[in-house]
């Protein structure tokens, strides 16, 4: 399509009459409404977190953060995340590999099942594990007899977090792996590479951005999960309170500064997540462009 031709044709008509664009008035009205909506619903709540956290000054903010129970909550959140993210990373890669590179019956069912934790209410998810491992539950008696604590203890929090963050890595990887196809792997195998070599040298590098993106999202959700963890944790201050649960407890104790101080750390995590995500998307687009430049011009259909 000739760019020149269109622009000349456009210049020939007055701006507001362009056939495929709104009049400037409508355009700016739409933009303003969108901006106001985002301002009220996204930006103001974000700024409010930091404003409230610092409303009593930096000193009160710092004191709220070094409170021993708050520090214990931060430590617990980091521990839980450090366990559950790698577990789901390994699963996500395996699942995406199976779905994208092989053909088998029931594949779409498998994809639906992987997505399932997204649509289950976190509270229901937590309850399911209480039903399994709680004292009234299937394994409750057996575990109790062996003095193993899962519910109202750290293992339960880990299991609930793993359930909730289960789909993130797989979901990001499946479309990327499907898009890269199997030709490169086949070439590597023909040239004598072993299965593992092919996986490490060919498959993983081709999906690295998608993989990182999945890990970032998984990590953010693991640190911030509230509903499911709230059901299984038992809310023992200093022992089974994660950061989001600590926020709730401080709020209920009318300690607004404390609640907002912990919340501000989680909000920083969210901002970091968004920043990294934007960076990754930008890198991915640049890699793609570079690949397009070096590859021969694909035929237009």
């Amino acid at each position, binding site marked *: 399509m000739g760019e020149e031709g269109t622009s000349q044709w456009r210049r020939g008509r007055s701006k507001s009459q362009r*056939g*495929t664009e709104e009049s400037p008035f409508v355009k700016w009205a739409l933009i303003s409404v969108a901006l106001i909506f985002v301002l009220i619903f996204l930006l103001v709540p974000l700024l409010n977190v930091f404003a409230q956290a610092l409303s009593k000054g930096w000193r009160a903010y710092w004191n709220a953060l070094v409170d021993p129970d708050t520090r214990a909550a931060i430590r617990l959140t980091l521990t839980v995340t450090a366990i559950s993210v790698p577990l789901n990373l390994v699963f996500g890669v395996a699942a995406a590999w199976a779905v994208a590179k092989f053909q088998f019956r029931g594949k779409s069912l498998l994809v639906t099942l992987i997505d399932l934790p997204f649509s289950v209410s976190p509270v229901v998810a937590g309850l*399911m594990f209480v039903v399994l491992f709680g004292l009234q539950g299937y394994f409750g008696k057996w575990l109790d007899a062996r003095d193993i604590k899962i519910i109202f203890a750290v293992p339960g929090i880990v299991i609930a977090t793993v359930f909730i963050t289960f789909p993130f890595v797989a979901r990001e990887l499946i479309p990327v792996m499907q898009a890269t196809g199997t030709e490169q792997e086949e070439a590597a195998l023909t040239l004598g590479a072993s299965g593992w070599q092919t996986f490490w040298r060919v498959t993983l590098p081709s999906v690295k951005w998608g993989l990182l993106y999945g890990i970032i999202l998984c990590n953010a959700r693991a640190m911030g999960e509230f509903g499911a963890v*709230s059901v299984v944790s038992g809310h023992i201050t200093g022992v089974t309170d994660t950061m989001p649960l600590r*926020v709730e407890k401080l709020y209920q104790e009318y300690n607004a500064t404390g609640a907002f101080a912990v919340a501000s750390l*989680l909000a920083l995590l969210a901002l970091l997540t968004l920043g990294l995500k934007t960076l990754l998307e930008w890198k991915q687009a640049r890699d793609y462009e570079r690949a397009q430049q070096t590859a021969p011009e694909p035929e237009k259909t």
Partner: protein
Amino acid sequence: MGYTLFYLGVIVLIPIGGLFLRVLDLSPADFWRLATTDRALAAYKLTFGASLIAAAINAVFGTLLAWVLVRYHFPGRRFLDALVDFPFALPTAVAGLTLANLFASTGWLGKYLVPLGVNGAFTPLGVVIALTFVGLPFVTRTLQPVLESFEREVEEAAATLGSGRLRTFLTIIAPTLLPAVLTGFALAFARAVGEYGSVIFIAGNKPYESEIAPLLIIIRLEEYDYTGAMALAVVLLIISFVLLITINLLERWASRYQN
């Protein structure tokens, strides 16, 4: 492959199956009685009503946001684009905390709204506000790729044939976008029905008035009424499955339009 199925089974399928099996121990009459107490019915009504309103608000503003982000260039567009994902990244407890603070009578927004009679904190309206926040990205993110791949030629053809801009939008653009908007609406609705963290901070949680269904499950659990909690959970779980299937069908419909 085997590992995938094993892990999936242990983490997802066994817990869900376990819950259903336990509820099967109940007689249907008992289940019905537990799942439809007056308090539960009030909670369902609030949960579904507020979720529907929130998803509808998001359908309108989400479509507008997607349109503005794809079609127009203006300063701050990329910043706005990144910010849309903010509700996904922010822990729900933090969202609830800050929204409750904003809409309370002393907060930045409540200061002006409460004198006008708009009480956002500790009322059913608060539930709608929180659910709108958590569901905000869904419609925009579903719609954006569809709008980007939308062919301008069709609009140009319509314009050449003398159609006004509004008519082009209503008769050509809107029907094409509809499946994606509906998918986004269903995703936002599904998320809202199960949402817990953000709502409990802002809702006030009064029984029969501002108590959502997931909260009632937790209350039953704290009363050691396990069967009551499980009956409610199964109702929510069945609704999630129905929504999941609906979303899958909608997505299939939407992708047929795109090709």
